[in-house]
């Protein structure tokens, strides 16, 4: 059992398509998710992440293509799939009118536990998720972070082999987000495969063993976080000068030091450049340090300097030649079609 949970492929999808009216939510999506890992689906709103999750969780039938979860077809063997997966969607996945305990007991009973066992399981989960005191309160009175925790507690009630987390940290404050990350790490450490969708590269980087970048309903890049980053550059250097008159010279010095094109920002004091891309043996930090030294030697006064990870925008720009603008119109169409 344990070995089957954590070896082989948890998800295999080939050429999944699904349209809602005119909108192609999935345009031939392929996925291979190894069991026992956290797999990240990264993309902006409207990219098709949620539709993919809904198809894989048996909530939505694909128009074309096929998908298997632990070897079971999501359309023809939906019940076998349902017995092994759990979903925490972006929306309420517990009943807001009910208390925390009632929600967990309800689910425990639906999964076949007898009442005392369901109650015991509920208490265990509430304790593990720091919700013991909130157990008797209606979920609608929970804070955002508590809401997420009860959602996830409900999802692991049956210790699923595969857990879908659809944007689990969207709208959470940083502390609650860190708590969710800790929980995800614990979940995967115990052998549950996690498919996580996110808009944040940072989050995928923190949690996922492999990432698929999704755009307009298909996977446009796939690999480990390291592979993805090295293909687009490890980071971006942002500089602010004291004197705008020095900018042309700073541009020249930077270009020479980094060997990449330097971008002049709208702010007449600012410049940015990508570092750590393929073909450069030096680490991003070291490249940046050398560039800073060169600038100092040239007598250019730098007031502010930062080296950041590439943002999702930059990943997209590099992969698609278009920025990761949340496609809200598309998102709304997908929303309406839910």
């Amino acid at each position: 059992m344990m070995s089957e949970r954590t070896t082989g492929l948890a998800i295999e999808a080939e050429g999944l398509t699904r349209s809602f009216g005119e909108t192609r939510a999935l345009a031939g999506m392929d996925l291979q998710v190894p069991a026992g890992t956290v797999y990240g689906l990264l993309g902006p709103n409207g990219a098709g992440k949620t539709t993919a999750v809904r198809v894989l969780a048996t909530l939505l039938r694909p128009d074309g293509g096929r998908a298997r979860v632990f070897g079971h077809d999501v359309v023809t063997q939906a019940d076998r799939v349902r017995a092994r997966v759990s979903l925490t969607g972006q929306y309420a996945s517990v009943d807001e009118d009910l208390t925390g305990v009632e929600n967990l007991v309800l689910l425990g009973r639906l999964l076949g536990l007898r009442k005392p066992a369901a109650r015991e399981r509920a208490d265990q989960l509430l304790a593990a998720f720091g919700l013991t005191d909130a157990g008797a309160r209606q979920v609608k009175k929970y804070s955002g972070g508590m809401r997420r925790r009860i959602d996830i507690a409900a999802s692991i009630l049956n210790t699923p082999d595969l857990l879908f987390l659809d944007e689990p940290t969207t709208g959470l404050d940083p502390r609650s987000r860190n708590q969710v990350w800790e929980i995800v790490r614990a979940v995967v450490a115990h052998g549950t495969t996690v498919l996580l969708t996110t808009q944040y590269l940072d989050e995928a980087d923190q949690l996922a063993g492999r990432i698929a970048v999704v755009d307009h309903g298909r996977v446009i890049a796939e690999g480990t976080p390291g592979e993805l980053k090295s293909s687009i550059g490890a980071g971006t250097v942002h500089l602010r000068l004291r004197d705008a008159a020095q900018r042309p010279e700073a541009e020249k010095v930077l270009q020479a030091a980094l060997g990449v094109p330097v971008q002049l920002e709208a702010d007449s004091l600012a410049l940015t450049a990508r570092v750590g891309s393929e073909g450069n043996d030096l680490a991003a930090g070291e490249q940046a340090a050398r560039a800073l030294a060169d600038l100092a030697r040239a007598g250019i006064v730098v007031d502010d300097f930062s080296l950041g990870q590439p943002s999702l925008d930059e990943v997209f720009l590099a992969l698609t030649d278009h920025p990761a603008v949340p496609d809200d119109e598309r998102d709304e169409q997908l929303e309406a079609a839910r």
Partner: protein
Amino acid sequence: MSNAATTSGRAPSVYVPSAEALATVLAPGERPARPSALAASLTFGWRALLKIKHVPEQLFDVTAFPIIMVLMFTYLFGGALADSPRDYLQFFLPGIMVTSVVMITMYTGVGLNTDIEKGIFDRFRTLPVWRPAALVGMIFGDVLRYVLAAVVILSVGLVLGFRPDGGVLGVAAGIGLLVVFSFAFSWVWTFFGLVLRSEKSVMGVSMMVLFPLTFLSNVFVEPSTMPGWLQAFVKANPITHLVAAVRAAMAGQSDPTNTMWLLLWSAGFVVVFGTLTMYRYNRR
């Protein structure tokens, strides 16, 4: 309780996920056997009861609304259509009971639509249980509301002077027939609850269906006073059969023809709209 996750006092202290506490809940246990269709439906019915417990305001439509209907129509039409409101009530009470209860069946659709809108049905639909259980359980909860509404109306009627000749048994039989029909008719609304986009459109459609269905019947007046073409519609209307059967039962008589028609209609609603509902439910 030794783990750091335990909170104390009024202000919720910061939750720190503890590896040990999480380990106890994440260890894969034995999978219990899947619950039977009935057990799963009853569990969903329990959810409906819990919702009534937490949001008792939702009983407004099965208490205040029926009382208003009885009072309003008894005194509005009573003097004109019969010798006195009291005489009219003797004819009218079973009909207004049917009208009120059939009208509140639409809340099944509204409730389902809200559940879907909020996302909770996504969780239910990923559970490995008998597929119709979530909907059947929901309607079980609604049946309780129908019984409550019927009892409220009966009580108001008794206070105003309604005296059923059928006694306790006749009245119980009448309410029983009404509940059977309402259970079946609820499947029309689960279908619309799944198909339509918003709560508002479910309300809109249900009003368009329910008003003609309940008014163009034998609820308020004898059909013999209506023009011929309208009589034809009224005679075919399932509500007419239902009201006739309930009236007969409460008066201590039996009306096998109308009772048979009403049961046939009920079976038809379950078969047709139950199937359509499950088709939509599975294929969203």
